[in-house]
């Protein structure tokens, strides 16, 4: 795997192409300009969005200032707006979803790549990808009609009986609330994380597995080596899932209870930033109200940015530790 042959191939190609040199240089230039334009477009779009949202929410930013982030009241009628319950709901539901989805998705992916026979792995992988294609409103309806009753009748009473002393499982169990929201998000992000992790694991060279097995490693030990190699890819998959969980709107608003309140209990209703924008934007009247909703969009931007950054840092440090321990 030395780099010499690569270089030779590269130089060889360049010499071979010398005949069409002028043409190629022009082509290269166009290619580079097009790619640079594509890259710049992303930056321009992000910058434009931030600029427009800041401008449109200026009224609210001026009126509430930093207090918007810490305010706990959301009362459009009285014109009082605070974002804290929404920020809390967005982060808690997304983290909850990640806690449930990550082990399951990584497990499914390992099973598909390392353990399952080919005849089973193919249709299963197809099914997982199919799950990712289901529209979120369908997930939301399923959550109302299937998940919520299931949680209300079986899961939540059980949790209350066994772990009721914890603050997370107090209050009325009616199947709608933060817990249901987290679970539906988990179900929605599982296919994405699974699909990406599966691709990452498949990209780990077979030679590594063969080498490990040849040295007398068990299946479990071999998998551990594969995982260590796929670390950064898995981290990317999780961050991708987190992004979807934070931005999800339709499904979660149908099941989370839409109540801007901060409560430790997972049985209680909550609210997310994306949901409140989707819910209230169409009927928002009055400059300040509209401006406050747009500021929520700006905050969602910020929350996504910070949470993604933190997640990447956390995963990076964890993967470094595991790499060192090996």
């Amino acid at each position, binding site marked *: 795997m030395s780099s010499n042959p690569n270089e030779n191939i590269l130089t060889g190609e360049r010499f071979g192409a010398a005949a069409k040199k002028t043409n190629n240089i022009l082509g290269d230039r166009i290619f580079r300009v097009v790619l640079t334009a594509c890259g710049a477009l992303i930056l321009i779009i992000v910058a434009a969005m931030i600029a427009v949202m800041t401008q449109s929410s200026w009224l609210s930013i001026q009126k509430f200032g930093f207090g918007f982030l810490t305010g706990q009241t959301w009362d*459009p009628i009285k014109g009082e707006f605070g974002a804290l319950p929404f920020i809390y709901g967005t982060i808690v539901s997304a983290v909850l979803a990640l806690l449930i989805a990550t082990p399951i998705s990584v497990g499914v992916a390992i099973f598909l790549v390392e353990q399952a026979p080919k005849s089973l792995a193919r249709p299963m992988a197809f099914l997982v990808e199919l799950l990712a294609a289901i529209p979120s409103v369908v997930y939301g309806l399923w959550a109302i009609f299937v998940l919520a009753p299931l949680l209300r009748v079986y899961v939540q009473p059980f949790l209350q009986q066994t772990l009721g002393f914890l603050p997370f499982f107090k209050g009325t169990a009616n199947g709608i609330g933060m817990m249901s929201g987290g679970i539906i998000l988990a179900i929605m992000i599982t296919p994405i994380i699974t699909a990406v992790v599966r691709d990452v694991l498949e990209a780990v060279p077979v030679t590594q597995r063969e080498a490990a097995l040849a040295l007398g490693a068990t299946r479990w030990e071999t998998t551990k080596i594969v995982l260590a190699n796929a670390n950064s890819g898995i981290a990317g998959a999780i961050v991708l899932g987190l992004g979807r969980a934070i931005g999800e709107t339709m499904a979660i608003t149908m099941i989370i209870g839409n109540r801007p309140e901060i409560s430790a209990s997972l049985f209680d*209703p909550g609210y997310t930033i994306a949901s409140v924008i989707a819910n209230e*934007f169409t009927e928002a009247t009055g400059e300040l109200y509209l401006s406050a909703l747009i500021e929520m969009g700006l905050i969602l931007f910020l929350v996504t940015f910070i949470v993604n950054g933190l997640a990447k840092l956390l995963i990076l440090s964890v993967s470094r530790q595991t790499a060192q321990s090996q």
Partner: protein
Amino acid sequence: MFSSIPKKFPAIVFIIVSLANLACFSGRQGRGDTVKIQGAGSSFVNPLMQKWVSEYGNINPNIRIDYQSIGSGGGVKQTRDRTIQFGATDVAIKDEEMKTADGEIIHIPVILGAVILTYNLPGVEKPLRFSPDVIADIFLGKINRWDDARIRAENPEANLPPADITVVHRSDGSGTSAVFTNYLSKVSPEWKERVGEGTSPSFPVGLGGKGNEGVTGQIKQTPNTIGYVELAYAVKNKLPVAEIKNRAGQYITPTFETVTNAAAESLADTPADLRVSITDAAGANAYPIASYVYVVTYKDLPDGRNGKALVDFLLWGINDGQSFAQPLYYSPLPQEMVKRATAKINSITHNGIALRAETTNVQ
């Protein structure tokens, strides 16, 4: 070889696009007589509006009306900004907003809607009865048990469970919430003080469901819940509907008739601009949680031909169009309001000249 595909591809796309453009453009030129009217707003009135648009289009093929169901708030905003010719709203525009518009906006009642209380109580067969103060206290969280003495007093025969009440309300901004909270603000001083009225009220208790379907879904799936939805939606989905005590002390089931009655009973108090709340209406047979749906437009329209078409369409809607109301579960306007709304539509002008009068002169 490779490069030939991308070279030809854009060319083909360009030709197709320009051909399509040409087709559209010439098509538009060909139908030069067509008048296009754009409206938007209330999603509640959307099924009826679409019916009107298609029926009216059959009678007058040269008038094309587009109605976008974007919500009352959006409809009012776009009408004010003059991006559309008319808006439809479940709530009359407030005074402050009327003042800041760059011209006089008029309200034309086109149909009636009502909000009903529905619930999920296994074992309760007959419709429950509620008086206004009990409804307010349930939604304020002060009455939180189904076996509360005040609920039992009104429903002595009902088999009320010894369970907590779970309130379900709309989470999305909606005219339904506005009408419901307008009613509660009238019947309960405490509600008016603590919550007030509006499209997105901050409810003291309960779960929020998105849309009529979200509220209904949560109520159907969860025992011991209570919530409010549009009458049309409740009838279509055969939900249990509560009887509500009106100002005359009668328990009233919401029907097309009792809703129209509420409007008829309020006619004496209806001001000249027709902006009126008909919740908590007087009259023995009036259902107390009802409201008009308004079409809003500028009184003086900038485009004469377009304005004339809009005037004709609206006149047709509040007269002939009323017959489409009941099959779509809306309550028709009372006769007297049809007269007043007709007069209101006749007052629409173009450059100060009445559009309706203009035609009568020509004829």
